[in-house]
């Protein structure tokens, strides 16, 4: 299959919830990227995180294997810096091949606001 998607994606509404329900890691509150690479080659990604009152941080470098999906918890990223929880942020994902990016949030503190999922914004170049 040809590579579908875009090379640049943006997600403005990041906010990793602070608290979590047990047991973890299944119910760890989190922001998560669902990354689809339908290409025949490895996708190299660079993520930049934007904040409301401090300079952007990045790049967080990831790869997605050819013709695979990869789910990445943003909570777990530590290189170059751990992202603060309970802090508004936005992410821009740049890839060297077209990919598809979906955003997923689990807030396990209360059932009423447990899950949110949305497509990231695909940027036309």
């Amino acid at each position, binding site marked *: 299959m040809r590579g579908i998607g875009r090379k640049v994606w943006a997600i403005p509404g990041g906010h990793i919830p602070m608290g979590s329900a047990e047991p*973890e*890691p299944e119910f*760890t509150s989190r922001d998560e990227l669902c990354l689809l690479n339908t290409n025949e080659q490895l996708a190299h990604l660079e993520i930049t995180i934007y904040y409301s009152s401090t300079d952007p941080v990045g790049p967080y470098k990831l790869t997605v294997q050819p013709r695979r999906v990869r789910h990445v918890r943003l909570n777990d*990223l*530590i290189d170059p*810096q*751990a*992202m603060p*929880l309970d802090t508004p942020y936005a992410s821009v994902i740049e890839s060297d091949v077209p990919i598809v990016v979906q955003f997923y949030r689990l807030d396990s503190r209360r059932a009423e606001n447990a899950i949110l999922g949305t497509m990231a914004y695909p940027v036309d170049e």
Partner: protein
Amino acid sequence: MREWVNWSGSLRFTPERIETPDSEQALVALVQRAAEQGRAVRVVGKGHSSSPLVQTDDILVSLEKLQGMESHDTAAHEATIRAGMTLQDAGEALLKVGLAVPNLGDVNVQQVVGAISTGTHGTGRELPCLSTMLVGGRMVTGTGEVVEFSEQTPDLLRAARVSLGVVGIVTSLRLRLLPAYQLHRQEWCTDVRHCLDHLDELINRNRNFDFYWYPRSDEVKLRTLNPSGEEPGDLSYATLVEDHTDWASRIISKVREIKFDEMEYGVPEEAGAECFLQVRRRMKDKYRQYVGWRLLYRTVAPDDAYLSMAYGRETATVSVHQNVGLPYGDFFRGIEPILRDHEGRPHWGKKHTLRAEDLRPLYPRWEQFLQVRQRTDPQGVFLTPYLRELLGVPISEQARAAAPAGR
């Protein structure tokens, strides 16, 4: 004058000058001049420590030009190396002559002498800190004399093994080693409950065992290293995620591109699991918002170096980390009381807040160490204000009189 910066960037200072003597004789001359002029000399390795052991506004000495192996005896499992060699370079040089160090820490970028002098360790219930492989060598004392030390000078050897660079500047190290060997490294993911339920057997049945705990997910990664064919078998409660075999000098340590600051304490091994659980609880309750770095839990065999973290006791170590560039002070200060409550002794090269009055009760041979230091450096050439405070050594009238005005 140029600024000196340690590996993580959290320690910066500007010494009056940085010297790189290319021979032991040049170092002797340097120390003698410094002693005559009442100056302070601090020796620095690769700058991997983040406590201010090397910080000085006077003379900083690097032994980076003292490279190479002086001699080896493969049959006797010994080699003598010069003090500027890194663990990585020494590992490759030793491998060529069929030898290897008994253990390594998490990284191998440090100079051998720096790792030894700060009590750096790896993991393994039967494996003491790296300092114990030092069985002899030569050092330049604070009076500028070259002194040989060995198992025939046990007092000096036990002080030199974890010396913080205040007993003398070691120029040559005779190391007790092992025949070159390979290890099978495996890494497994599981959860805290399974890790702790099996902790004793994991420690007892593997040559090297440690685990990482991840504060943002509460997951655990187990790491085991064993000679091929001596692995205890698969772990039904964990998922294997890494599996390869290589020479020990190439596989025990890992390359770490990412930089961090670290605090580590050694506690009695029987208190290790409870200590870990309390640290975990506090990190989840108070610090998870800003701390994503994992905690590392290791074990160290006892030894008899006067200032060793594992002096006289089976030890478990708990270390916490923070990304360079993110604040660590509040986090480390919030965790340190738990580590101290468990009779913890700090890693000398990592962050801690203890001073002589806190440290003296933790080390049964504290006074013996200070006596050796007084003999080898009576004028305190190797001491700085931080080290005097750390060790509880007041400035002597002799040193005060010898010091240049303003120092």
